[in-house]
């Protein structure tokens, strides 16, 4: 089964007590091990709505429709959840801290979720980092038909209470992020 992988990553200035980290990161961490689609939809929507409301400073996104789409999803998750190394920003920081949210979707190719994503991502390169583009992508992700979605995830780094990278650390550690215009 051919797959599509979509991700969007957004950073915003965020102190350790920033409630937005919880608002974005918590909904999908519900205690339940299984959820009905309607329930999952509610949590998904809450997380993405909270993310959409934030004043992002940097971001990036991608739609992958190659054979490696599913492997890319796995790679992303593995990297995100790997907390073996202590990051630079946990040890020292000079500037204002940031948080980074990551939204991941793996969908069946040529089904509705994939097609909606394809439509939303069909954008001229000059606009890729426009704020309105990120808003539109999050709106699209919120409205996806989850029936054809195989996997999804939302993560926030750092979690509540964590420090967070300053801008220089952000640009070094998340060097694919660009300023949002």
């Amino acid at each position, binding site marked *: 089964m051919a797959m599509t992988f979509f991700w969007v990553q957004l950073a915003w200035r965020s102190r350790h007590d920033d409630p937005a*980290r919880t608002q974005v990161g918590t909904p*999908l*961490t519900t205690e*339940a*091990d*299984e*959820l*009905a*689609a*309607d329930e999952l*939809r509610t949590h998904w*929507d809450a997380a993405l709505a909270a993310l959409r409301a934030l004043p992002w400073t940097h971001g*990036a996104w*991608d*739609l*992958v*429709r190659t054979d490696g789409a599913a492997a890319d999803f796995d*790679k992303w*998750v593995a*990297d*995100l*959840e790997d*907390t073996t190394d202590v*990051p630079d*920003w946990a040890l020292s920081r000079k500037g204002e801290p940031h948080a980074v949210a990551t939204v991941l979707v793996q969908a*069946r190719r*040529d*089904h509705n*979720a994939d*097609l*909606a994503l*394809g*439509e939303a991502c*069909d*954008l001229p390169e000059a606009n*890729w980092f426009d704020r*309105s583009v990120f808003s539109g992508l999050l709106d699209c992700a919120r*409205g996806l*038909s*989850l*029936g*054809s*979605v*195989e*996997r*999804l*995830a939302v*993560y*926030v*780094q*750092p*979690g*509540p209470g*964590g420090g967070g990278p300053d801008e220089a650390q*952000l640009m*070094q*550690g*998340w060097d*694919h992020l*660009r300023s949002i215009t």
Partner: protein
Amino acid sequence: MTDTTRHWKRAGSRRGERILGARWWNPNPTPSSRRDAMAWAAGLLASAFALPLLAQSAAQGTEEDDEPAEPRTRASDLQRAVAWDVGDMTTHLQWPPPDLAVDVNGSSAWQQAVTTLASRLIPPDRWQPWYLSTLMQAAAQPHPAGRRLVEQLRPFCDDAAKRGLALGRGLRAALPDPLPKDLLLIIDLPGPQAVAVAAGLGDRAAPVWVLDNWPHPRGVVPSHLTLGTLLFFLPWLAGVRPAAANAAPGDLVPALVLDGNRLLAYSDASDRFDNRYLVRLPPVDALNGRGLARVLLVTDGDDCRDDLAETLYAWHTAGIAVRRVVARDFGESVVEDDAAPLHPLLGAQVRAPWLGLAGQEPALWSLVGLGGPAVQVDFASRRPGAVGWLPTKRATPFWLSDSANRPPAHHHGFVYRSYWYAGRGSVVAPGRSGSWTRSGGHYHGS
């Protein structure tokens, strides 16, 4: 419908200072079929003016769809789910002359109205249940599809529309004074002409639009021309208000306006997008409940279109007086309207009386059999067949009048989704798109 099947499973979660979040997986993703796309449509139809809520509407849709993938999908469902120009995003709508940039008032204000047509053209309350604003919603499709359509739309008014306008004025002159409260008009003419008839009816009728498709660059039905005509006449259509002080908006004669091109002949050619649709007229109870006892169908053929046959016959057998007049019978002569000045875009303002009965227009009702004072007219010297039509039982692709069984499922307005999704290869480029241009690691900085 609420899904109570717990099938999404948590695949992992992290709750710490380093990272907070979780991932979920769906072990039984189902092939998305028509119902998936219809979930999008359902929210819109439930709230015709809630296009900004598209995402939320989809969110309320049915997630569990265990139907097998269908070979065909309703065209408008596919368009709503993907884009109005699905499969042909680089092909532009074709506009025949004239090349207009302004509406009937000579204004470019239509540009601000494109995305709000559905609310601007809403009929009075009592007719709203019959209002189908699908066409008017097309340009309000979310970015970027909606913008592509907005950029291609423009006002439209060709000679056929001008004839429609004169017809509408002729019909307007025939309406009795005071306006009858039991009369329903059905305007079933090619889209631009039908819209113009509604414009010609002016302040005596309340158009109730029944336009249930979206335009497409390769559409069988050129509904963008209908949309363009709506934009051209919008100042008149959106401004319709009762002229008589004693006529409330709900007292205007309701006029169901249909696009007669909706059933255009079409073979399943690979280069055409089947955006046809069927009209379902209200049941007889709905007419009775609104005190409607007389119906005048304005059409362009000797009989009604196939999708109306069953309902019109049902109305007829239930005691509703159903008659029809043909557009060509309004074309014998035109009469200049002395009260209206020469229009800079439309030229002389004329009306086309039915059968050339200038000055005797109200005779129409008695002549076709819808009441009113008797009038003697020599039909032999005019149009044979102009009167005397009644709905009849007849077999159509949508109704087998001599059988209790329904005819086989028709394909009007259904398309092969896979072909228009990806087969044409122009929906989206395959492979990778987006701001990420690297390969490999460095995804994040932990």
